[in-house]
């Protein structure tokens, strides 16, 4: 049975269609793994296994009768707990939404359900997606399956850990400054942030509206293409979703990469990046060269302004997006307030964790009277300069390449200082500011911990990223390695 967890989605779909296995068997397999792993990893906020059983039964019917069932039909997966699921709590790992049950599905939830994928549960995150380690979860901590003393990354730590530990076949995360790619790197799995506007944000609890995107976390690039295919596409409920055709991403997977031009921004390969990470990334470059790609160093001169820009724009938008959590209409309501203002203040103070409060205050300050120009407006301008860097580089190159993170997964409590924590996203944040597609794939190990390789593409050119990433995976074995706690299976 454990071989199933080594099987790619495409092959699984074949097996399911040929009735060699059933959705219920797949789910059973996952449930066994969940029982084994969860006590150590704690990736899930909510398990919805009874519901999942029913979905598995429905999927079986679908597989029997549908002419062309989706390749995701019958496949157990998980959703980050900031993606709305009707009738199932969606907590954003925050005490302020601990009991909240949305009366509606996010668009991606509906699309996966329509495809027949099985929702096993909701995964843990840094509260309201604000963090890089999942230590900021307001509920509990998730551990990295590779080393339980280390963080899985964040904010989509639960989703990355669940996929890495074989608890589900794929998961969705959200990425505002690296929150899919960074945990994917730390957990040795594939994580993609699509171009801004590729995937509907309707039903994704907003952190920073102009930066958030939902994306797949999978074990292989081929799996990623399949999941991406299902969740992409224009949504009339999201004014910022791109009215563009969605190509067949799987068609890019096996295209050779001879002649493709890769740019390596020097700002991402220097000071601040761990030597072992640099080493792994350079080896990957060599491998890609061997496959026929060409590479050259390039520059993104405004890179160092990325983090400050992000921490002004994202927090400003967040301060407004999180204003609705006031104990009036839903969520936690603190008792004992003498009037509604007192009640709201108490509710928010009790319900939000420290990082959320910090970012709300920073964002409020950046927008406030007298400071708007110096902070928020300045950041809006800086953003266009950062984007321009990428636009110019991507005229000369088909894609860019860098490490995903400066280090491998760190130990719990190691980055207690907020600024130190923010530095984890130094390679991923500028990509969100530019709205570009980006993928992280495993490219090596240091001290037994996974290292991630980041590829950044032109707007809406997820295809080229999948192409390069898949070719790399076909010729390397990093993605096939499993965390020690999962290797006990026979």
């Amino acid at each position, binding site marked *: 049975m454990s071989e199933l967890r080594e099987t790619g989605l495409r092959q699984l779909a074949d097996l399911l269609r040929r009735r060699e296995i059933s959705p219920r068997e797949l789910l059973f397999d996952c449930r066994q793994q969940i029982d084994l792993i969860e006590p150590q990893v704690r990736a899930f906020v909510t398990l919805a296994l009874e519901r999942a059983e029913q979905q598995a039964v429905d999927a079986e019917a679908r597989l029997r009768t549908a002419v062309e069932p989706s390749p995701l039909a019958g496949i157990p997966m998980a959703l980050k707990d900031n993606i709305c699921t009707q009738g199932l709590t969606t907590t954003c790992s925050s005490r302020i939404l601990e009991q909240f049950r949305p*009366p509606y599905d996010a668009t991606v939830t509906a699309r996966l359900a329509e495809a027949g994928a099985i929702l096993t549960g909701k995964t843990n995150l840094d509260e309201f997606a604000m963090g890089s380690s999942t230590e900021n979860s307001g509920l509990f901590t998730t551990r990295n399956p590779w080393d339980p003393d280390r963080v899985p990354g964040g904010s989509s730590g639960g989703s990355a850990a669940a996929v890495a530990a074989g608890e589900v076949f794929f998961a969705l995360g959200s990425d505002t400054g690296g929150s899919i790619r960074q945990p994917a790197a730390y957990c040795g799995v594939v994580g993609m942030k699509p171009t801004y506007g590729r995937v509907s944000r309707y039903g994704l609890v907003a952190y920073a509206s102009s930066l958030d995107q939902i994306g797949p976390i999978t074990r292989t690039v081929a799996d990623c293409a399949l999941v991406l295919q299902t969740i992409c596409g224009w949504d009339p409920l999201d004014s910022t979703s791109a009215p563009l055709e969605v190509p067949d991403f799987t068609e890019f997977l096996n295209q050779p990469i001879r002649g493709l031009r890769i740019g390596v921004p020097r700002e991402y390969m220097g000071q601040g990046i761990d030597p072992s990470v640099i080493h792994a990334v350079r080896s990957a470059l060599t491998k890609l060269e061997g496959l026929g790609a060409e590479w050259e160093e390039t520059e993104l001169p405004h890179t160092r302004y990325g983090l400050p820009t992000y921490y002004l724009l994202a927090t400003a938008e967040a301060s407004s997006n999180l204003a609705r959590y006031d104990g009036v209409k839903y969520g936690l309501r603190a008792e004992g307030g003498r009037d509604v*203002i007192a009640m709201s203040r108490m509710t928010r103070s009790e319900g939000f964790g420290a990082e959320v409060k910090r970012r709300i205050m920073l964002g409020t300050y950046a927008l406030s009277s007298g400071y708007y120009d110096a902070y928020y407006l300045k950041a809006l301008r800086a953003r266009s300069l950062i984007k321009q860097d990428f636009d110019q580089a991507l005229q000369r190159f088909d894609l860019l390449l860098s490490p995903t993170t400066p280090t491998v997964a760190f130990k719990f409590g190691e980055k207690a200082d907020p600024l130190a924590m923010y530095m984890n996203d130094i390679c991923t944040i500028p990509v969100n500011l530019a709205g570009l597609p980006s993928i992280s794939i495993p490219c090596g190990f240091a001290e037994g911990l996974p290292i991630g390789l980041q590829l950044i593409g032109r707007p809406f050119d997820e295809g080229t990223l999948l192409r390069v990433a898949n070719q790399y995976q076909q010729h390397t074995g990093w993605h096939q390695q499993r965390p020690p706690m999962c290797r006990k299976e026979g």
Partner: protein
Amino acid sequence: MIINREQVEHVALLARLDLSEEEIMLYTDQLNAILDYVGLLDQLDTSQAEAMAHILPLSNVFRADQVRPPLAVEDALANAPDRKGEYFRVPRIV
């Protein structure tokens, strides 16, 4: 010091946050450190740069003026912390 204690308290008020004495002190320190780092932007000449509020070149995204069924009242109130009949109830407002 870029932001002082009074400013932190004012911001907390605007953001409807009740901060303990410890929190005020801690956040004042941390916010100062972050704003200090953010001050890096002062070195960047943005005078010729466009203020980029939207990342995609989309405009005029509209929908037609057509009614869709609203939520059932029970669904609308399902998560209400307190209700009276078909209303949401809140503590006194003034």
